[in-house]
């Protein structure tokens, strides 16, 4: 297996587990200085989002929504343009472990930003970007930009070499980190998973035991229920018999003559009682 294969595979694995590698995250931040890289990354992602939205806007049928999206895009662009000076200031700062080529690369990136931002189509006419971009970078001391295009080629060449260096630097870092990543995966990632799985298995054991016990309890209850069933059936039959007989008896007694006599006697007694208590 050649080195390139190893590198590609390591690359793929690293990409997969990037979010778990705490050290790498820290390095990402440290390889730029914290503020710069973070800010740059955020601005970058904002630009990407804005570009996507611009695409959406261009596809939009209804004018109103297109107008709304364009307005938002303009607002985003304005905000990003404000961020650019901050980035410029951060880019100039020297950080330990950073080569001068890196620094130069950073400056170039920052310079390219305003261009990119302006390039986001927001429905307005394309403003002349180049001059604006170049103009902004004029006050910096290290890399001198004359506003004419002559230096353009050289400028781009420098960026090429610096980006090569950057790539090499990253490759070296990745090779070093590949081994560290494997170790950190083993230690940071698997053990919490194992513990979690252990707890789950314990819980499942308890559940299984409870389920078995419930099953047996149900089996135990079945004959008892059958007994109850027969007894209750007998009781209901008896009740039905009794009710029918009671009904017959009450019907017999209900003959109207007896009823009237009862009422008359009651009235007489009440009359006597009232008389006595008056």
């Amino acid at each position, binding site marked *: 297996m050649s080195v390139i294969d190893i590198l590609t595979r390591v690359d793929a694995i690293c990409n997969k587990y990037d979010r778990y590698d705490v050290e790498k995250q820290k390095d990402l931040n440290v390889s730029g200085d914290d503020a710069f890289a973070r800010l740059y990354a955020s601005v970058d992602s904002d630009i990407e989002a804005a570009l996507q939205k611009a695409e959406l806007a261009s596809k939009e049928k209804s004018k109103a929504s297109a107008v709304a999206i364009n307005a938002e895009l303009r607002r985003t662009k304005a905000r990003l343009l404000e961020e650019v000076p901050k980035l410029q200031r951060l880019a100039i700062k020297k950080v330990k472990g950073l080569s001068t080529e890196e620094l130069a690369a950073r400056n170039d990136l920052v310079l390219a930003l305003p261009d990119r931002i302006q390039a986001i189509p927001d429905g307005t006419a394309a403003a002349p970007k180049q001059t604006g971009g170049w103009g902004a970078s004029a006050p910096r001391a290290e890399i001198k930009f004359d506003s004419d295009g002559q230096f353009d080629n050289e400028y781009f060449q420098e960026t090429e070499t610096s980006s090569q260096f950057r790539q090499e630097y990253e490759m070296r870092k990745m090779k070093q980190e590949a081994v560290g990543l494997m170790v950190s995966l083993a230690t940071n990632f698997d053990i919490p998973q194992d513990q979690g799985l252990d707890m789950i*298995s*314990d819980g499942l*054991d*308890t559940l299984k*035991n409870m389920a*078995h*016990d419930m*099953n*047996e309890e149900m*089996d*135990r209850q079945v*004959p008892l229920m059958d007994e109850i069933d027969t007894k209750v059936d007998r009781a209901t039959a008896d009740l039905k018999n009794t009710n029918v007989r009671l009904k017959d008896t009450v019907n017999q007694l209900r003959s109207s003559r007896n009823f009237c006599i009862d009422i008359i006697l009651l009235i007489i007694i009440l009359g006597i009682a009232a008389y006595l208590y008056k």
Partner: protein
Amino acid sequence: MPVSDPEKLIAKADKLTKLSLTRWSADWRNATLLYEEAANLFRVAKKNEKAKEAFEKASKGQEMLSSPWDAAKDMESAAALAKELGNWNEVSDFYRRASELYMECGRPQPASDALVKAARALEDTIPDAAVQLYNEASAILEEDGKEQMTFDLYCAASSVYVKLENYSAAATSLLQLGLAADKCNATNSQCKAYLGAIIVYLYAHDFKQAEKCYNDCSQVDAFLRSDQNHCASKLLSAYTEGDIEEIKRLAQSSTVSNLDHVVIKLARKLPTGDVSALKTDAAKEEEEPLDEDDLT
């Protein structure tokens, strides 16, 4: 009826039952009624001794009226009062009598229930009598074919045996539990019972018995296929290797934690005695044949 003095009721009832020149036959019906009333009044008044006597007499009256069910019920009440009084002999006697009366009615279930109540009452004071009662109750149920009810009884019996430190008997009753469970196809209870028995033998530091028990139980298909079997085999192998950590770990495992409380307590205390002694024993047995070879 207005609240009458229970003593007077008793006296009246006694008069009704005592045969004399004027009375040729005892009037048990009324007497029983009076006895029961008096007994209830005594119970409410918390005069347990008198209440107990009244219940006894009421029960006798019910017997005379040939209603064993009521007689048994009265006997049980008398026994409960005796329990409160702490007359343990009377407790067991009354409950036994009640159980017999229930059997007369042809109702084995309440009969065994009565014996179980007696056993529970006597567990703390006279454990020997308690286990006997448990065994009798289980026998009654098994005759009736209701093995499913016996699980709890065997469990309780084995816990009392453990309290008495009669470990072989405890293991035996757990094995009987296993047998009853087998008849009902209650495989989970059966396997738990067998594992419990093995643990009891190990606690008693009787390794040979434990192994024998394990071999016997392995004949049973249901046990062979179960988690408890794995746990038991691991436990036994941990013992042969003298691996105390392993034993402790197994005792904490979920399989053991699902067993009966008493058995769990025993398991947590494993290993008792010297596990390494078992290891050296096993090793010595292997060495001896070699020595003999050397001599010859």
